[in-house]
Every structure is written in structure tokens, then in C-alpha cells.
């Protein structure tokens, strides 16, 4: 975990609201693992005040990549950065996905909804390096919400897409697409990242199918490195339910650990 205030932005690609940044950050890149994230300073003033958590989309050599969707003021300011400018990063943070040796020669499902696709490219690469066969499920509202489809396909991954409005791929939720595929073939493991309702539905499916899984959770973060206790979620551990820090104990948790909250306000 380091602070890199000189992470130079070397390349920007964009599709509407979605952005792919390539950054020079040798120290962070050297330590990074799939599923970990960065805390990025988006403003030089106190508005917005806090850094924003963004997953590692890829790390290779001295370079990092992030993929994000503009969701509000912070990500909007981030999207305005130009090549040649330097970003201020803290990372790599959190515990990543666990890739196990027994995945060799097995099919592994990686399910991403919307911006949740971000960490799955990096994970897919690691799975492939471990001899596993990742199948990437990519769901979006409409065809325009699948900007990484080509990139994933060109990298040689098997990619199955779905759109809520049926404008590309399977018509319907990505969770239904996963259910359809499960009728045909059973993977050894499932990883997921996306909106809570998607992951909660997938958790149900995994339990029913006896499919072990890991999920990457989101939470509003004050610090990203364990100092504020602001990012907690209910997690089951040693038979007890407790609030654990998403930034430090996660963001990746296993199926059995996550206690899905119906809604957080009561």
C-alpha cells in the first residue's frame, strides 16, 4: 500500500459515460492483485472532499488501468483528466479475489453488471494464467452499456452479454443469463461484481446450485485503508454476524460470509 501522487495518465478511452484510463504507477502495479482497488483524489479543493474508490481493471508492467462510469460529481471530475496529467492514488487496497489451483482446466464464471465489469478483466487474465477457463458474463441496461465487450472478446475471453432492453445479446437480466447457462454446463466457481440486487440474486442461485462463489462489494468509503470504520457491511464469521470493513476485510467476500440486508434503512 503506497501513495502515488505522480501516476501519469498515459491513455484515455471513452464511450459516453464510461472511461478507461491507463496510468503509469510502477510501485502500485508491482503489488497489485485482481479484486483490489485504488482510492483516487478527484479534486484539488475540498469539494468533493473524499477520495473515490475505483477497482483495478488491469495491471501490467509499470501500468495500471481503471474503468469507471460517471456516477456523480467525483467521477465526473475524474473523467475530465487529460493525458499527461498526474493522478494522486493510494493503493493497492483491500483483499482481492482468491484464485485456487484446483480451478485448472475448469470453467469459472465471472459475472459483471454495469461498471461491475471493471475488475473482471484482470481476474480473467489471472484465471487464465492459472490454467482455468473463465467465462465472462456482462450485463447492461442497453447495448451502449457494454463498452468493454470488444476489449474482452479481443483478449480472447468467452463473453456472454445480456441487456435489460434486449438491444444486444440475451434479453433480460444477466442473472437470468447465468441461470440459462447453468442448465447447460456447471462451472467450478463463480465470481461477481455489480449492483447489490444482481449479486443477491446470484447468491440465491449459487446456494441452490451448490456453487461456491466470491462477490466484490461496494460501500461508501471514508479512507479506504481501515482507519474510519465507515464502510462496514454485515459479515458472517465463526458463526457470528459482525460489521466488517469492506475496504480492509474485503471488498471481496465469499458467498457464505455475506449477510444480505433487505435494505439498509429501516
Amino acid at each position: 500500500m503506497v501513495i502515488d501522487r505522480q501516476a501519469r495518465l498515459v491513455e484515455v478511452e471513452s464511450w459516453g459515460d464510461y472511461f478507461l484510463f491507463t496510468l503509469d504507477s510502477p510501485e502500485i502495479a508491482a503489488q497489485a492483485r485482481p479484486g483490489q482497488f485504488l482510492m483516487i483524489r478527484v479534486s484539488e479543493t475540498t469539494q468533493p472532499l473524499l477520495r473515490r474508490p475505483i477497482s483495478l481493471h488491469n495491471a501490467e508492467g509499470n501500468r495500471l488501468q481503471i474503468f469507471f462510469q460517471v456516477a456523480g460529481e467525483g467521477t465526473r471530475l475524474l473523467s475530465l483528466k487529460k493525458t499527461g496529467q498526474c493522478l494522486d492514488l493510494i493503493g493497492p487496497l483491500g483483499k482481492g479475489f482468491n484464485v485456487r489451483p484446483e480451478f485448472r482446466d475448469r470453467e469459472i464464471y465471472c459475472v459483471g453488471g454495469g461498471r461491475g465489469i471493471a475488475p473482471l478483466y484482470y481476474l480473467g487474465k489471472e484465471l487464465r494464467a492459472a490454467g482455468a477457463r473463465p467465462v465472462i458474463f456482462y450485463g447492461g441496461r442497453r447495448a451502449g452499456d457494454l463498452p468493454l465487450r470488444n476489449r474482452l472478446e479481443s483478449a480472447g475471453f468467452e463473453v456472454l452479454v445480456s441487456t435489460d432492453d434486449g438491444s444486444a445479446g440475451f434479453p433480460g437480466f444477466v442473472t437470468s443469463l447465468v441461470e440459462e447457462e447453468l442448465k447447460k454446463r456447471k462451472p467450478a466457481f463463480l465470481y461477481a461484481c455489480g449492483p447489490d440486487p444482481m449479486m443477491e440474486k446470484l447468491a440465491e442461485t449459487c446456494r441452490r446450485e451448490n456453487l461456491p462463489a466470491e462477490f466484490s462489494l461496494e460501500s461508501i468509503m471514508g479512507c479506504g485503508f481501515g482507519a474510519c470504520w465507515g464502510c462496514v457491511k454485515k459479515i458472517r464469521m465463526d458463526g457470528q454476524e459482525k460489521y466488517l470493513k469492506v475496504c480492509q476485510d474485503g471488498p471481496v467476500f465469499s458467498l457464505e460470509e455475506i449477510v444480505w440486508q433487505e435494505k439498509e434503512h429501516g
Partner: protein
Amino acid sequence: MVDLSVDLGFLKLKNPVLAASGTFGYGLEFKPFYDLELLGGFVVKGLYLKPREGNRPPRLVETPSGLINSIGLQGIGVEAFCREILPELAGLKTAVIVNVCGEEEDEYARVAEYLSRHRGIAALELNISCPNVREGGRCPAQSPEATHRTVKKVKQVTSLPLITKLSPNVTDITAVALAAEEAGTEAISLINTLLAMAIDLETRKPRLGNIMGGLSGPAIKPIALRMVFQVARAVKVPVIGMGGIFSAEDALEFMMAGAAAVQVGTANFVDPDACLKIIRGLETWAEKHGIKKISEVTGSLQL
């Protein structure tokens, strides 16, 4: 060379910058970023007798130049702290201050007593001002009488120096400060967070699981500064100022208003090395202004 050290009477600090409770974990979280011994000191997260679960999420919401939190003092409790964390902090050449909490007045005394039996603690900071643990944000620091009683009880069971941390959620902060001083506190720190809230327009629900929380960050600085000024004029014990300090200039304002030392809170989240930058900034400012001892700045406000 500027002499950055400050003498609080009961405690000498190598510089006037302390990291504030609840924003610095148990200290260890910041070890990857810099050498903790460069700090004047740090105040660890508030501790109760027993581990606490804290409030339901969401626990954070950002507002203009501010942060509202409703953590609710989640933590490991004083026993686990003394067993697992304190041994790692005890050897550090910097002031380790422990933030003491209580559900009721007796618990403060029991936590303080427990801590007093351990080595490596420079002082206790009595957190009678957390807005997040009682109904409606109430706390002992809202009443001079309750403040007096609590400080007195704690003084009876510990020989460690006591810093009493005040709440800004009062009409007359000086009355509470005077009560704490009367009861024998060695110093006063202020301010804790301001009781606040935010609403999600779409769901029409509060944006914090606990409905209300405490506001910190640059948004509260002018209020904090005013209160530090008022308290420093009213009491004789040293005052430790905080609330929205993000730069050396902010820290200097608090010192001019009468603070002998300062604490840096929310800034640690944005820049984990914020305290270091502020310490360096103080040095640079003093050099530029021909000031040999930083402590000369305290109370130098011209009226």
C-alpha cells in the same frame, strides 16, 4: 531551525500536531504511510470496556466540504486494545493518547482505571462528546454538571493526565469548559463533531442508517475556531484545538486563537500523510516569519 516542541505542562510534545481520535484507527493503520514518531502524538479510536458493534450502515455521507459520520464507536474494547495493540504502540517515541468512552459516567472511570494499569499511554482523552451513541445525539459534555461529575470520577481512579474533549452541540461552551477545569482536567480539547443530517430526495430517507451523525471537515472550521477562541480565553489549562484543520495555515489560526496544540481528523482520510504536511508547513511558516519557537504563536491573536 525552528523549535516545534510544545509543553503542555503535563506532557511535552515534539511538535503541536496530533492525529485526532476516530480518524487515525489504532495508529497502526498509518504505519505503511510514514514513521509515526514524526508526529507530536496521536489519539487512538474511542474505547469502551467491551467491544462495540457500532451503528447500522450507511455510516458516511459527504456534504459540501464536510463529512457526516455515524460510526457509533465501533471498536475492540479496552481489554483487546491493551492486549493486542498497545504493546505495538508502547515503544514509540511519540505521545500515544487513548480516547476514553462510556455508556454512563461509571464506565468512563472503569475504562480509565483499566488503562491506567498499562504502560505506554501518555494521556487519556475523555470523550464525553460523541454525538453518535445516545438517543438524539446527547452526551455528558452538553451539561456542565455531568461534565464536572464525569471528570471528577475519572480523576479519582487514574493518575494519567486527562484531556477532556468538548462537544460543540451546546449553547455555552465556556460553561462546560470551566466545569471540566474545576473538576481537575489537565487540558481541554475541542471540538468534536457537530450534530447533522442529510436526506436522499428520491427515497425521502435519511442518508445515514442512524438518521443523524456528526459533521467534520473544512465545513466546521470557522465554528471550531470560534469555540477554541472562547474556551482559551475562559480557562487556564492548555487547549487543544481541532475541527477542519487541513493545512498548516488552518493549524496556525487555531494556535493564534489560543490553542497550544492541534488535532487533525478528517484530513487523514483524504491524505494519509496530512499530519506530516502540516508539521512541515508549520516549520516553513515559522522560518519565513522569523519565529524561533512555534509555541510563541499560541494566543498571539491581535484584538
